[in-house]
């Protein structure tokens, strides 16, 4: 689960990390009040969306009066922000963060993340923090230092001092740097984070480290340990449809084609997408039915597909396993087809556990489906149906 900047900062601030003084505003009026309350001469107005690249896309502005704050907030709120990470659809801005601008002496890059290849937590640090760090890494203009933190262990003092020196931090800053890393390491483990990124992390004139921007991702599989973090999702402005799917034990992603795709299992789903593309088709979505989904969950999923006006045909590729037999999926599809009343070609390929029983269920629901014996036949027929060809 991605967290907003203001949520991430609140979580880190509660654990001792310095962040700029700031308030969240939902309206331009609130933004003005927030600016007056901060009383700073330089103020940052920051769009709160779950994507990076905001600064370069005009989603962050630095201004110097409450009036300018109000105007900047008015220009951002309710608008769709398109950054290089949001995709062409962009993200709607429902909140702005109003912050006292920090005057940096130095800007650094710092992140903690789960390194899957080495099965450990890694600390990455760069001597120059900036929004275009990815490009600068790619061009080789800058590089990151790496330190292993194991399962969240404190690094050895010598390793820490070495890192601070390589980052060009004077010895006067070493102890503050060590405590910051301690706070971040403990927060990372306590919150079940998979990423905490401070970019930039600035050093102020009085020798303090301040996290000027923070990104945080929490492990979805660990949310059962963190009801307080689940509650933060209410402040998210995510895709409603994807949220419905999430609650229905479906992994759903919106795409821009015209074939509604349903599969059981991520691998089979990726394979199907590759075949759809090979057959010159394009999927309207990716929907993976998890092993724990019930027929009602599946029905909600197919309703999303059938209600999508872009969908010209539906492709169901299911290999019934020991955990998710075909009939559960057939029942879900049958319920959805009866409920929406939408007629569009439904191409199914069912095999494995309870495939025969699933066909019997379709007949019972009175649903017309085009039953295909193998994946490639099903994919080609779904593609030609979506192109409007008779099959």
């Amino acid at each position, binding site marked *: 689960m991605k967290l907003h900047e203001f949520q991430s900062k609140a979580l880190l601030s509660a654990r001792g990390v310095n962040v700029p003084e700031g308030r969240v505003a939902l309206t331009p009026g609130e933004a003005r009040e927030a600016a007056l309350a901060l009383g700073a001469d330089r103020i940052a107005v920051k769009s709160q969306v779950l994507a990076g690249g905001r600064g370069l896309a005009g989603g962050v502005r630095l201004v110097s009066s409450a009036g300018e704050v109000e105007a900047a907030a008015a220009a951002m709120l309710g608008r769709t922000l398109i950054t290089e990470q949001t995709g062409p659809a962009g993200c709607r801005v429902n909140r702005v963060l109003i912050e006292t601008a920090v005057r940096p002496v130095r800007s650094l*890059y710092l992140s903690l993340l789960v390194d899957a290849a080495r099965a450990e937590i890694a600390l990455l640090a760069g001597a120059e923090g900036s929004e275009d760090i990815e490009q600068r890494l790619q061009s080789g203009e800058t590089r990151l230092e790496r330190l292993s933190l194991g399962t969240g262990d404190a690094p050895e003092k010598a390793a820490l001092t070495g890192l601070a020196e390589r980052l060009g931090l004077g010895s006067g800053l070493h102890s503050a740097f060590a405590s910051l890393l301690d706070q971040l390491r403990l927060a990372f483990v306590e919150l079940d984070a998979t990423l905490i990124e401070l970019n930039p992390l600035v050093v102020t004139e009085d020798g303090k480290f301040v996290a000027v921007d923070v990104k945080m991702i929490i492990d979805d599989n660990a949310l059962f340990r963190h009801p307080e973090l689940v509650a933060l999702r209410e402040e998210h402005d995510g895709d409603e449809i994807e949220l419905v799917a999430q609650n229905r034990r479906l992994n759903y992603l919106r*795409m821009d084609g015209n074939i509604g795709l349903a*599969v059981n299992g991520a691998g089979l789903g990726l394979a199907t997408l590759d075949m759809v593309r090979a057959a010159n088709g394009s999927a309207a979505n990716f929907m993976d039915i998890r092993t724990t989904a019930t027929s009602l969950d599946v029905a909600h999923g197919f309703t999303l597909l059938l209600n999508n006006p872009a969908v010209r045909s539906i492709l169901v590729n299911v*290999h019934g396993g020991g955990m998710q037999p075909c009939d559960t999926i057939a029942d879900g599809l049958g319920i959805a087809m009866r409920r929406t009343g939408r007629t569009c070609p439904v191409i199914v390929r069912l095999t494995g556990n309870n495939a025969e029983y699933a066909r019997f269920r379709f007949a019972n629901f009175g649903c017309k489906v085009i039953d295909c014996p193998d994946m490639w036949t099903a994919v080609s027929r779904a593609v030609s149906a979506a192109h409007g060809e008779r099959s």
Partner: protein
Amino acid sequence: MTILVDQNTRVICQGMTGWAGTHYSAAMMEYGTRIVGGVTPGKGGTYHLNLPVFDEVAGAMKETGANASMIFVPPENAAAAMIEAIEADMPLVVALTERVPVQDMLRVRAALKQSSTVLVGPNSQGILSPGVCKIGVMATGSERKGHVGILSRSASLTSEVIAQVSAAGLGQSTTVGIGGDAIHGLSMRDCMELFLADQDTRGVIAIGEIGGSEEQELAEFLAAIKPDIPVVGLVVGRHAPTERRMGHAGAFAQSAASDAGNKISALKDAGVIIAKSPHLVGETIREAMAAAA
């Protein structure tokens, strides 16, 4: 011959008294797997499915002579169950549990470092040696005893490929779901090494997908060892939706390897025969094995 399991495999089930443990243990016994007991803390001394239940793995091993454990413990306690089995020096641990927190898996991997246990999974569909032993949740019916080894990161695709291999007139020596999570036990490379050491496996299918860099590690291994049996590869996700990601420099460092195209070319360069489409894997291994014979 098989890998990881054989007719002498004696299995205990951690979490046997729960719904999933009960359901799948019963199905495995029906298949012929020798399940010899269960472990559920607090239920030691009782019986379930006519098998003795123990409080701890160590006690269960001592009493039953078990040499494998399968884990059906819910995500909350799955890592603790894996670590308990590892610390008891259980030779083989198969973790079927899905959605185990990733930081828990860091601790499991740390425990594995000081141990000789082979961990398969988590989020694995299990291991199946047709007619010999099944430790897992896969449906059976389309598998056939034979000489193709299958190793896979995806449960659903494994079922698909097993059916294709059988339809091509071949059978499987062993199929191994190494698990779909980013951090898991037995790697693609290590599983391949086991297959190559098995006299009865005459061809191997490796099923990979986007994410991580295991396919590249497998490719490196194959390039060095130059196996004398055909290896067929399938890597899916070339046209996966580009998830609206929260970009960060760390992901950037790993992104190149996680791309399907990169994995495919690494495997191809290592001599792996890449299946042209996911529906052609069975045919591809049939042709490759016929050519090698």
